[in-house]
Structure formats: structure tokens, C-alpha cells
């Protein structure tokens, strides 16, 4: 057999050799161990089971006995008393056996938990009477900690006060379970137990243990708490802490200095508890210490201190708080500082985060008012200059100029908001300086300044005009326009000026300045008012400065119209009173002017005949002329630009909702004619697709109907050619009658409305 050269042959890996006999024995051992384990488990389980069953039986055996003992009464019958005595003997025999004694103890402890009232007292008395507490004492000397613990528990549950002296030695036991059990027992069994415990305990007292001890003390009847402040000097931190909590719980507020001193304690928990006590007892003397401790305290302590300062502090603490408000970096603490400041001085710090500036809300108003006012001011100045130029009023009477000045001065007086805020001094207006520097006022101030500047210039204008040539007027105006605002100083109270804005309430300075949002609203309203006040387009200064009687009638009328239309802005240059009757007549005439038409011509004629007053006569003549001129002509009545030429559906259509509009379109479809074309066309061109579609459909129907009617008319014309004369005469007569009636003055607004409704009715009913 050939093998390849240089081939390496590896031997097979051999399995280790085992001794089969040894393996067999090992298997046997494990099997035995398994059997032993299962057997042991089985036996132990059985033993426990049988012991449990035995215990249960024993419990059931003891149960009626205990019941007999518990509910034994002296009033029982002899038979019952005999049974009771027998049971007592029997039970005493039983407890000689350890198992029975343990079971009986267990039963009594169980029942101790389930029973209350007199039965419980009897149960505890029975426990001692049967001498079971002796067994518990023995348990205390055991070397096993669980037995000691159960002994302490038994004695505590059955309130064996005699066991106190035996238990106190376990207070500092190294085993925590025994120690805790002993602590509870000591506190529970005797009133002085808490003092002994606080004096002697060296170990930590857990939070849970403190709660349990407090619970025991809480439920102790007739418990007189000692002065827990005595243990504030303890070297055990937990004793100090527990004492502070007990002080707080039992409201012992006679340890002020100690508690304040504890603010400087190294332990944070003690500091926190002391702060709680200070807050609880309202120790205001602690405030300086609280402030002293604050800078180097931890965050939790800082928050607790701020809380305490908020609770017991006064406004004297505000500088301290404001200092830390500016200095503190931690968000939580800074929030707490703000909260404390606001708690001491409510709303001293207002929300600033995510608050929009006032300009955001007022910018639109500014945009609306500011340019308009400026433009109007410029126009007025131009107009005034032009008028002066045209009429050569350089030598205008001084009285009139002074009147104008008064007018502007008064106008200045009636818009106090436009003054620069800085110029309104506290002396003159009793304002709060803090409010004056509010940024929120600034946007409105800007508008106000501009207004004031303009007004100031206007005030100065007439004085300049009296001394300078008219050619320099415009230059002066321009020069004056760039001047800074000068405050209007009134040294003496002026005589009651003629109010341009008579009837408009004087703004309340103090009120406006006390509340900035309200002030701004007031400013806005005032600016709008000022805007209207500065609108002088309607004022005919020429007419006002000349004698009214010398003016042509139209100009006089204009002047009167001015007086009426701008009643709110009445400028009365001279006293010209009408008597009551004339005044009433004038009011009537003005009402007629506002609302009347040509039907009032007889009334006007009557007034004209009866009145002797020149003003009334002039006004009545004017109105007669006006209404006579406005009498409707038949040709105009149905002119294309007249409303009557429109569809009767148009007005109601535009006032209706969509659903009604569809109904109206259906009506138009039935009775519409060429008048509805424009309306339908506008709807087709409109945005609403559904309406447009419907309108298109209706338009088609109306067009078809019109075509049919026209065709039918032509056919009738052809068929009744010889009957036309009569019909035509009748129609022409009707038309002429209608025209005559219109000419005779019957075409009033009411007639128009009647005609519209009749037309609509006719259309609807065919």
C-alpha cells in the first residue's frame, strides 16, 4: 500500500479509562443521597403536618376553655362555676407540658390580636394567671436571638410591666431585631420608658422605628409627654432628630433657643427638622439665624429656609430675598425665592416669561392713528397758512386770534395723555414714579409726543402771525416743526374755556396712571378722539371770521350745517341763543333735513308762513329748495342706476344664508326675468361653487322663459292684431295715470316700497 511521502500519522485520542466498579458505587451513593433527601423531606413534612394538626387540635381543645375563662361571670350558675374550676385545673395540668404551654401561649397571642375591650383585659390577666410570662422571662435569657425576640414580643403584647427591667438591657443589643423589639417594649411598657430609651440608646433609630415608637406613644392612654427639649443636647444625632419630631408632634414650644441653635447643625436632617419646628411654632427670632445659615446651606435646606421665611417673615426680609433673587443660580431655589417674595409682598414680582410686549397689542392702533394724525396736522397747517395767505389775514383782530389760541390751548388741555410722561411731575399730578418708568407706556408716549409737538406749534402760530410777515409763515411752521416739545405750563387756573369736545369726559389722570393697561386703553380712545378733533376739514374759517349775515346764502348754510353735523365739536364764538319755540322749530327742521323728503314740503311751507325768525326762514327755504329739487322724476325712477331697476331678490339675497339663497334661486327660476340676470351673473362669477352652479342653471331657465315669452308675445301680436288699439289705449292710459300720480307727488319712498312689493307679489303669483 502506497502512502504519500511526508505524511504524518497522528494516533487516535484515547478516552480516559474509568473504573467501572467505582462508577457503580458512585451511582449508588447519589441514589442513596437522593432517597435520603426525599425521605427526609417526607418525614419532616409529615412531622410538621402532624405537629400542625396536633397544634390545631390542641387549639380547638383550648378554645372552649379560654372562652369559658373569658366569659366567666360571677352570676353564672353553680354548674357553670364547677365547670370553670374543672377547666382551670385541667389547663394548669396541661401547661406543664412544653408543647401545650406553647400552644396555649400561641392561642392567647392570637386572640389578643382579634379581641378588644373587656375580653382583651381578661385574656392578659389569664396569661399572667397561668404563669406563662415566666416562660417569657426564661426566653429572654436564651442564647438564640429569635427566642429572645419572641420573649420580648410576648411580654410586650401581654403588657407584662414586670418584664420592663429585664427588657431594658436589650436596648443597646448588637442584634438589631432584639434591639428594636426592646425599644418598642420599653416605650410601651412604662411611661418613663421613652426617657430611658432617649437617654441610653446609642444606635441609630431608623425612620420606621421612629414611626413605630411615635405610634406607640400616640396610642398610650394617659401619656404625659416629658420635655423632649432635654434630648436636643444628645450626642446621638438620631435622638436629637427624634426629639425634634416629638417636640413638634406634642407642640412643645419652650425650646426656642435650642431649636434656633440647631439651625447651625452639621446634619441636614436636623436643620430641616429645626426649620420645620420654627415654622410650626412661628419663632420669628429665628429669622436672623435663618438668613445667616442660608448662604452655605444645601439646596434642600435653602428651600426650607425660604419656606419658613415666607411663613414667618415680614417685608423687612425683602432686601435679603431680592439679593438672593439676583444672585441665586439654581432654578428651583430662584423660583422659591420669587415665591417667597410674592408671599410676603403679593404680586411684587409679576410674570415675565412668555409675556408679549404691549407694543404687540398697540402697534396696529399706532399704525392707524399716527400717520393719519401727522398727515392731517400737516394738511391743517398748510390749509391754515393758505387761508391766511388768500384772505390776507395778517391783521386779523387780536380777539379772534386769541380765541383761536384759546381753542388750541383748550384742545391741548383736553388731551393730557399726549404729554410726555417724564414731564408729568409728581407735584402736579400726584403720580407714582415707579409707574411712570414702566416700559409699557413708551409706545403710546411716542404718539403722544408727536401730537403734543404739533399742537404746540399750532398754539404758537397765531402769536407769530401777528408780528411777522405772512411770507415767513411757512418757514416758521417748518422751523417750529423741528422744535422739541415744550411742556405746557399753566400757572393760574384758567377761566372756563369754550370746550371743543364739550360732552366728552375729562380723563382722570390718577386713575390712568395707576393702572397702565387702563391708561393705554384710555390713551388709545383719546387718540381716536383727538384724531376726530383735529379733523378740521369741515370748518370754514373764513365763514367763521366774517359776519354771517354778509355771507352768501350757501356759505351761511354751510356754516349752520357745520354747527349741526359736528355738534359734538361745537365752537361757539358768540352767544346767540334762540328762544324755546325757535329752538324746537330748528330741531324739527334739522330732523326733516336728516330724514325727510319731498312729502315734508307742506310742513316746511307751513313753518315758513308762521315763523318770523330769519334763521328758521332761511333754513326752511333751503330745505324747500332741496326737497323740490330732489322730487323724483318718472324717467329717473326706473333709470338703470336706480335701485328699482335691480332685481327685487338682490337685497334679500345678500342678507340671507346659503339655504335661503338656494330657496330664492328656486323662486327666481320660477318667476325671474331679465332683472335677475345681473344677480345671477354675479353669482356665477362668485366663489361659491354650489351657488354658481345653481345660478347657472337658473339663468338658463330664465333665459329660456324670456325667449318663450317673447315668442308668445310676438304670436299674440300677430293673432290679435286688430284688437291692439283698445288694449294699447288702456295701457297707455294706465301708464299716463301712473306717471301723473308720480308727478303729483305720490312717488315717495313708501310708494317705491309699495311698487317693489307689488312687483314681487305679481311676479310670484304670476
Amino acid at each position: 500500500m502506497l502512502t504519500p511521502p511526508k505524511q504524518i500519522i497522528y494516533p487516535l485520542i484515547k478516552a480516559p479509562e474509568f473504573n467501572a466498579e467505582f462508577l457503580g458505587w458512585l451511582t449508588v451513593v447519589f441514589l442513596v443521597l437522593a432517597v435520603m433527601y426525599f425521605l427526609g423531606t417526607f418525614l419532616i413534612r409529615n412531622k410538621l403536618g402532624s405537629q400542625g394538626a396536633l397544634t390545631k387540635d390542641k387549639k380547638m381543645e383550648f378554645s372552649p376553655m379560654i372562652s369559658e375563662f373569658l366569659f366567666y361571670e360571677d352570676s353564672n350558675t353553680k354548674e357553670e362555676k364547677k365547670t370553670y374550676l374543672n377547666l382551670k385545673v385541667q389547663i394548669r395540668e396541661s401547661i406543664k407540658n412544653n408543647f401545650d404551654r406553647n400552644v396555649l401561649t400561641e392561642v392567647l397571642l392570637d386572640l389578643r390580636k382579634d379581641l378588644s375591650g373587656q375580653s382583651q383585659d381578661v385574656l392578659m390577666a389569664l396569661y399572667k394567671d397561668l404563669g406563662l410570662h415566666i416562660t417569657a422571662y426564661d426566653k429572654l435569657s436564651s442564647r438564640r436571638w429569635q427566642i429572645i425576640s419572641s420573649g420580648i414580643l410576648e411580654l410586650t403584647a401581654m403588657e407584662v410591666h414586670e418584664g420592663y427591667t429585664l427588657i431594658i438591657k436589650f436596648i443597646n443589643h448588637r442584634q438589631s431585631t432584639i434591639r428594636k423589639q426592646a425599644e418598642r417594649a420599653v416605650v410601651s411598657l412604662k411611661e418613663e420608658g421613652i426617657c430611658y430609651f432617649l437617654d441610653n440608646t446609642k444606635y441609630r433609630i431608623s425612620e420606621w422605628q421612629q414611626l413605630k415608637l411615635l405610634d406607640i406613644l400616640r396610642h398610650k392612654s394617659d401619656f404625659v409627654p416629658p420635655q423632649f427639649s432635654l434630648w436636643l443636647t444628645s450626642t446621638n444625632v438620631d435622638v436629637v432628630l427624634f426629639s425634634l419630631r416629638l417636640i413638634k408632634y406634642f407642640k412643645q414650644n419652650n425650646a426656642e433657643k435650642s431649636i434656633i441653635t440647631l439651625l447651625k447643625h452639621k446634619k441636614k436632617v436636623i436643620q430641616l427638622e429645626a426649620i420645620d419646628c420654627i415654622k410650626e411654632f412661628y419663632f420669628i427670632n429665628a429669622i436672623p439665624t435663618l438668613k445667616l445659615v442660608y448662604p452655605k446651606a444645601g439646596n434642600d435646606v435653602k428651600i426650607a429656609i425660604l419656606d419658613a421665611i415666607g411663613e414667618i417673615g415680614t417685608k423687612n426680609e425683602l432686601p435679603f430675598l431680592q439679593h438672593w433673587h439676583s444672585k441665586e443660580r439654581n432654578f428651583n431655589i430662584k423660583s422659591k425665592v420669587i415665591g417667597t417674595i410674592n408671599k410676603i409682598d403679593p404680586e411684587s414680582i409679576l410674570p415675565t416669561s412668555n409675556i408679549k410686549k404691549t407694543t404687540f397689542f398697540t402697534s396696529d392702533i399706532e399704525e392707524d392713528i399716527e400717520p393719519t394724525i401727522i398727515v392731517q396736522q400737516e394738511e391743517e397747517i398748510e390749509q391754515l397758512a393758505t387761508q391766511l395767505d388768500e384772505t390776507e389775514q395778517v391783521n386779523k383782530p387780536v380777539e379772534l386770534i386769541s380765541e383761536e389760541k384759546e381753542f388750541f390751548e383748550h384742545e391741548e388741555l383736553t388731551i393730557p395723555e399726549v404729554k410726555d410722561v417724564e414731564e408729568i411731575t409728581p407735584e402736579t399730578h400726584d403720580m407714582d414714579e415707579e409707574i411712570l418708568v414702566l416700559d409699557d407706556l413708551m409706545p403710546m408716549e411716542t404718539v403722544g409726543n408727536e401730537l403734543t409737538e404739533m399742537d404746540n406749534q399750532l398754539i404758537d402760530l397765531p402769536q407769530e402771525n401777528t408780528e411777522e410777515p405772512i411770507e415767513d409763515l411757512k418757514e416758521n411752521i417748518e422751523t417750529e416743526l423741528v422744535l422739541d416739545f415744550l411742556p405746557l405750563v399753566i400757572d393760574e387756573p384758567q377761566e372756563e374755556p369754550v370746550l371743543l369736545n364739550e360732552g366728552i369726559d375729562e380723563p382722570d389722570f390718577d386713575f390712568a396712571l395707576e393702572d397702565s393697561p387702563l391708561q393705554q386703553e384710555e390713551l388709545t380712545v383719546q387718540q381716536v378722539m383727538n384724531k376726530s378733533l383735529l379733523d378740521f376739514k369741515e370748518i370754514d374759517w373764513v365763514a367763521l371770521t366774517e359776519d354771517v349775515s354778509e355771507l352768501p346764502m350757501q356759505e351761511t348754510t354751510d356754516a349752520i350745517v357745520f354747527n349741526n353735523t359736528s355738534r359734538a365739536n361745537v365752537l361757539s364764538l358768540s352767544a346767540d341763543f334762540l328762544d324755546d319755540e325757535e329752538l324746537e322749530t330748528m330741531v324739527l327742521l334739522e330732523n326733516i333735513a336728516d330724514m325727510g323728503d319731498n312729502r315734508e314740503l307742506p310742513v316746511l311751507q307751513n313753518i315758513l308762513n308762521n315763523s318770523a325768525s330769519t334763521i328758521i326762514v332761511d333754513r326752511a327755504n333751503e330745505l324747500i329748495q332741496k326737497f323740490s329739487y330732489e322730487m323724483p322724476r318718472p324717467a329717473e325712477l326706473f333709470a338703470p342706476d336706480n335701485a328699482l331697476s335691480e332685481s327685487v331678490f338682490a337685497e334679500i339675497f345678500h342678507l340671507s344664508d346659503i339655504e335661503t339663497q338656494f330657496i330664492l334661486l328656486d323662486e327666481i327660476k320660477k318667476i325671474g326675468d331679465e332683472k335677475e340676470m345681473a344677480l345671477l351673473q354675479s353669482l356665477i362669477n362668485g366663489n361659491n361653487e354650489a351657488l354658481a352652479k345653481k345660478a347657472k342653471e337658473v339663468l338658463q331657465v330664465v333665459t329660456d322663459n324670456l325667449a318663450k315669452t317673447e315668442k308668445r308675445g310676438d304670436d299674440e301680436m300677430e293673432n290679435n292684431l286688430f284688437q291692439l288699439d283698445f288694449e294699447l289705449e288702456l295701457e297707455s292710459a294706465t301708464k299716463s295715470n301712473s306717471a301723473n300720480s308720480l308727478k303729483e307727488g305720490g312717488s315717495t319712498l313708501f310708494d317705491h316700497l309699495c311698487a317693489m312689493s307689488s312687483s314681487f307679489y305679481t311676479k310670484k303669483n304670476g
Partner: protein
Amino acid sequence: MGKHVLLADDDQLLASLLNFRLKKGGYEVHHSSNGREVKEYLTKQRPDIIVSDIMMPYFSGIELIDFVRNDLKLSTPIIIISSAGNEQNVLSAFELGANDFITKPVSPTELLVRVARELNK
């Protein structure tokens, strides 16, 4: 012959004690240690009053009240024994028609008075 009391409680010791006290008070007492027994008993017998613990195996006190009031349509007075602080169970028991309740630890004498009061209503 005394009134018939059904005592339903799984705690044998306490039940025995209460049984003893009620018997001494002149009542005939039947003790059932779980809900199933109570249900069986109620289908055969009609006690004058039921004293039941809320926590029982198989059939809780709440279910027992529901069974008595809605299934058996009985107006038998029911007194509930509950642990202290078990407010929700007590409220549920009253909603379903329990007449009274007593909290653990129980005073047997107090229970006796309550039973007498319910039976005398």
C-alpha cells in the same frame, strides 16, 4: 328557642369564641368556616341573622351579601366583620345591602349587642 345566627368566619379560634359568646347570649349558632359551606347552608336553611367575615376562602363576605340579596332575595340582616382600615370593603358591603359592620379586633360583647339590635329592628 333562640334566634338562629349563621356565623361565617374562617378563623377557627375567633369563630369559636364568638360562637361561645353568642350561644351564651341565647342564640342558636351555626358556624361555617368558608363561603362554600355558607352557600350550601343558605340554600337549605334560613337564618334570622348572618354574621360574616369579609375575607373568606371560596366565597367572600361581599359575594355572600350579593348572593343573599340578589339571588336568594332575602332581607335577612347581615353584620360584616372586617379588618380596621378596610374602608372600601365596608362601603361595598353597605352598597350591596349589609345592615351593620364591626371591625377587628372584635369585642364579643359588642357583637352580641349589635346582633340583638338588628334582630329587634
